[in-house]
């Protein structure tokens, strides 16, 4: 790959060629370099809410979310350092502290991307006092459940419902720590007339917030669903 429409940059000292307009995360993925992510999902638009994918760019004291920062010519990116690990660890701790995550009694225990990241970064306790908030659990749908108490507001469900299923049932209401996922105009899921019950939201939820009732979570999660559907559409 070279020529018009491409740029050259360095990732961890390795020269990488990328398409103009591509994100650092995409360029790194193609070069076989893993950057931890949480809100990002292949096949959906980039949202940039979790900050797990932060990288250092030479010449700037700031940290950049690689899933929303486009590549540019001559850019020098570092994807792993003590500083980055420190902030990624802290981010996971803050996410765990914000809601009453109790993995021992959670449907996603053992199949949770947040739990996996906590393990990866050695989060062995939370340095922040926990918010023992109580938010809405909607049990009105025939088989889908949303428990906002475990939601990390990644909006994967909102995006998959809007961009792949094409119905935009889900959205976020309120701000800051009061933010919650809502169905339609904040109605009960069971009475929603726009939801097609396609389950895509449950497939992409990285944690135990949206799930299919009475089904093992390992069978209902499918991170590749968005990319899979897009690739079929192109054929």
């Amino acid at each position, binding site marked *: 790959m070279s020529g018009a429409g491409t740029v050259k940059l360095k990732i961890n000292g390795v020269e990488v060629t990328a398409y103009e307009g591509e994100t650092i995360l995409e360029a790194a993925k193609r070069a076989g370099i893993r950057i931890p992510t949480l809100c990002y999902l292949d096949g959906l638009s980039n949202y940039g809410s979790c900050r797990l994918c932060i990288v250092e760019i030479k010449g700037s004291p700031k940290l950049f979310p690689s899933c929303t920062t486009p590549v540019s010519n001559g850019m020098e990116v570092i994807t792993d350092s003590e500083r980055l690990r420190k902030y990624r660890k802290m981010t996971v701790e803050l996410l765990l502290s914000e809601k009453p995550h109790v993995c*021992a009694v959670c449907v996603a225990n053992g199949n949770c991307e947040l739990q996996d990241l906590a393990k990866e970064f*050695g989060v062995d306790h939370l340095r922040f006092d926990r918010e023992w*908030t109580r938010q809405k659990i909607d049990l009105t749908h025939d088989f889908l459940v949303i428990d906002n108490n475990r939601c990390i507001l990644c909006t994967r469900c909102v995006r998959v419902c809007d961009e792949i299923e094409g119905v935009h049932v889900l959205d976020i209401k309120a701000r800051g720590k009061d933010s919650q996922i809502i169905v339609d105009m904040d109605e009960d899921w069971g009475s929603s007339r726009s939801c097609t019950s396609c389950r895509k939201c449950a497939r992409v939820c990285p944690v135990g917030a949206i799930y299919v009732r009475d089904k093992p979570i390992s069978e209902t999660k499918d991170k590749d669903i968005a990319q899979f559907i897009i690739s079929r559409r192109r054929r």
Partner: protein
Amino acid sequence: MNKVNFATVWLSGCSGCHMSFLDQDERLIDLAEKINLVYSPLMDVKDFPENVDVTIVEGAVGNEEQLHLLKTVREHTKILIAIGDCAVTGNVTALRNTLDNGSEEIIRRAYIELTDVNPLTPNDVPKLLKRACPLNEVVKVDYFIPGCPPSADLINYVLTEILAGRAPNMEGKAKYG
């Protein structure tokens, strides 16, 4: 070699972490050569002794008696280790914190609603704290072993490192739940 004075404490937990500690199986024999057990629910000692080198504490801090004990433990212990999710984050024990009057509601549930005979609120059990909390919200904790319960392997790894004077590295090892 001088043996280290070792204690285990059980606060608001299900004893699963102590079971996992015992699951170290034959490795307990190696451990026994290095430690001198001075206080534990596994033995009959009433008061927490002075000059303890290492104490592992299971369970969240749920009531006033436990709060008092934990403070004594901290004063008398060089290295305090929180073992299990309840001690580390509050976990199941702290689920009542999400209720508005959690401490009163669970007393009513346990002693009134779920009793067949003599429904009665007890007045001779230690008073529940308004919120159950992890150890590090009350005292300084030196090391943490998360898990519900933590695996015997993880407990053994952490204890082996600490008894050898090294700090355990929890990256890739510490799993909640």
